Every structure is written in C-alpha cells, then in structure tokens.
C-alpha cells in the first residue's frame, strides 16, 4: 500500500503528461511531494549541497558560475536595495509607514507565501505590501518591477539566511486545494510549444536550450527579486513566471493572480529548508 503511494508520487512528479499530474495532484501529500521533488534533484545533481540550489543554474555549471561570481563582486542589485530601504523609511502621506504593517521589521521573507484561512487565499509578500499601501490611502505599486521590486530587494536582503518553511495547514481543505492547483499548473503542458514548467526545470534541468542551461526547479523561489541582465533591471518572481509562460507561447496569467499565487505556494513549499538569499543576479 505504502509502495503504491510512493509510486504514484513519483509518477506525478516525474511523469509529465498533464492528465497524469492533474488526475493525481490530490493523490500525494505535500510532505510526500517535497521529499520526491527534492530527492529528484539531489540524485540528478549529486555533490550539489541542498543550500546551493538557491543559486539557480550557478549551482550546477562551473563556467557560468565563474562569471556570476565576478558579477557578485559589484552586485547590480545593490542600488535597488538602497532605494528599497529609502522607500521603507519614507512615511506615507498619513504619517504611517511600512513598519506599521510589518510590526517586526523588514525581514519578512520567512512568513510568505502563506495560507489565510479567513480570506481563503494564498497571501504573498508583494500582495501584503500593496495592501498596506492601500490601507493607508496610497496607490498600489506595479507588481513586476520598479518600486515594489526595490522594496522586495531591501526586505529580501534583510531576510537573508531565513529558511523557507511554507506550511500547508493540515485539515484545511482550501489550503490543500490551492496547493494542488499550483501543483497541477506546474506539471501541465501549456502553450503552442506544449511544455510544462516541469518539462524544462525537472526533466531537462541541466541541459542546453541553445546556449542557455536550464536551472533545476529546486530552490527556484529563494533568490527573488532578481536583477537580470536581459531585463536590465530588477524583476519579481511573477514576472519570471509570466516570461516562462510566454516562452512556450502560452498566455501568461496576471502577476498576483490566483493562478500564480497558488503556483508560488506549491513551488515555495518544494524549497522548504533552503535559505532565502535574495536579491540575486542572473544572466
């Protein structure tokens, strides 16, 4: 009995046909998924310590790691951390500030994303920042880049070293459904090119698409926001989700949509135990 459950978990995580994942999304528990997902990568990349997976492709490719380490000498995200700190310390028009919403300071990464049982939804850090602004009569910031990304850079920097620990509260059917929706999303083929997230970041991780090496999905949520040379600025996790959907010619969901919040919930849970290390620099 136990064996079949494990077999189904393996099937769901390794098998990529959308029907398999969708049909079986509810058949394995979040704890089982975490174990299967993590060991898939630690077996595929033996010798890479768990914490290293927070560095994306640089955990598995020495050549790109070398140039990344050179970039990290003068991190391109540094000015954004400074801007974020300034924003954090600038009072709203009503005299209040972010620290009135985040009572224990900017080091908040470890608390997000989380399930809110009353609101029956996954709450992310960017969402909370904009809700804080609106509660204080300020306009919400744009989700994907700009000031919000800078605030996240500052908060991420202050949170460095905190461990990912996303909880799917037991006995809360809503939380489990949100998690399973994120999981199905991850394993479902999408777009004209017909790839799932898992096609590229599990099955093909470590392989080359032209000269790009596909990063392992483990640790994918720890290093945000990311300064990407290709963007020429800082971007949020949901900006990246949208970009990856577009690459396969699928219509992206909106940043902070239910779909992406649930995807973030699932994917961050998969990185439980790995330290937050944002902001980061990427090619």
């Amino acid at each position, binding site marked *: 009995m136990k064996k079949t459950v494990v077999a189904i978990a393996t099937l769901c995580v390794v098998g990529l*046909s959308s029907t398999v994942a969708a049909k079986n999304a509810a058949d394995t528990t979040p704890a089982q998924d975490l174990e299967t997902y993590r060991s898939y990568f630690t077996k595929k990349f033996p010798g890479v310590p768990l914490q290293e997976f927070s560095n994306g492709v640089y955990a598995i490719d020495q050549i790109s790691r070398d140039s990344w380490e050179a970039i990290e000498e003068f991190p391109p995200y540094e000015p954004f951390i400074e801007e974020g700190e300034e924003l954090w310390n600038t009072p709203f028009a009503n005299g209040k500030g972010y620290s009135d919403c985040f009572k224990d300071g900017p080091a908040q990464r470890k608390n997000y994303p989380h399930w809110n049982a009353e609101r029956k939804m996954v709450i992310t850090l960017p969402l909370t920042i904009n809700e804080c602004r609106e509660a204080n009569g300020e306009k919400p910031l744009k989700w994907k880049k700009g000031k919000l990304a800078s605030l996240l850079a500052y908060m991420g920097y202050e949170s460095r070293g905190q461990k990912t620990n996303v909880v799917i509260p037991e006995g809360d059917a809503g939380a489990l459904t949100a998690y399973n929706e994120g999981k199905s999303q991850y394993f479902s083929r999408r777009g004209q090119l017909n790839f799932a997230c898992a096609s590229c970041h599990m099955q093909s991780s470590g392989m080359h698409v032209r000269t790009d090496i596909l990063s392992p999905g483990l640790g994918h949520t720890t290093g945000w926001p990311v300064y990407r040379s290709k963007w020429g600025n800082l971007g949020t996790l949901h900006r990246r989700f949208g970009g990856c959907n577009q690459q396969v010619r699928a219509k992206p969901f909106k940043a902070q949509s239910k779909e992406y919040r649930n995807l973030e919930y699932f994917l961050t849970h998969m990185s439980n135990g790995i330290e937050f290390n944002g902001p980061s620099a990427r090619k």
Partner: protein
Amino acid sequence: MRKSAKLTAMAASLAAVLAVSLVPVSSMAEGAKETIAKGKKLAYNRKLGNCLACHMMDDGVSPGDLGPPLVAMKARFPDPAKLRAQLEDPMAANPNTMMPPFGKHKILTADEIDAVIEYLYTL
C-alpha cells in the same frame, strides 16, 4: 584537320543534346535545392522550427542538447512517414517528449514540414 572538325561537330551536337536534356534536370535540381535551403532556414529560425534549440545538426552554431544529433537521417529514417510523424506529433511516440508538436499545434505548416524533411534527408 578533317578529323578534328568532325569531332567538333560531334561535340557540338552532343552538347546541344545534353543542353536540351539538361535544362529540365538542372531546373529540377534548382527546385530541390531551393526547398532544401528553405527547410534549413526553417529548422534554424528561432521563431519557426528552432530545431537547433535542442538538436545538433549540420553547421548550426551553438545547438542545444535536449534531443539527439540529427545525422544520417536517410539511414535512420528510411520511411519518410516515420520522420513526418515525429514532426507532426512526437507525443504519439513518447508521451513525455520534450519536442514540440510542430504539425499538431500548427507551429509549422504542412509545406514547411515538407521542406524541413527534404533538408533533414541531406543530413
């Protein structure tokens, strides 16, 4: 002198015969060449075939390595229908494939797939 004149005449008529018969042959070759060149362009173009994203092939620069190198296609795919099926819908052969369904999802038209196949058979 007489001999060489005769030879010249012979050569000339031979050339004429050859020219007549060669015209359609060479224009056919031109047509095939064009199709092959078109197929190659489609295979390399990032927005169209983008086969190079995953396959080492021919003189393509910086190929990916998700799929096997495309070499000796005639020997490995004596049956063009098999090759066509792989381009139409690779999921039929391998449900977990990483290769996009070029025909089924209309990434390439039927004509474009024909051209790519012509090109593949030169590899």
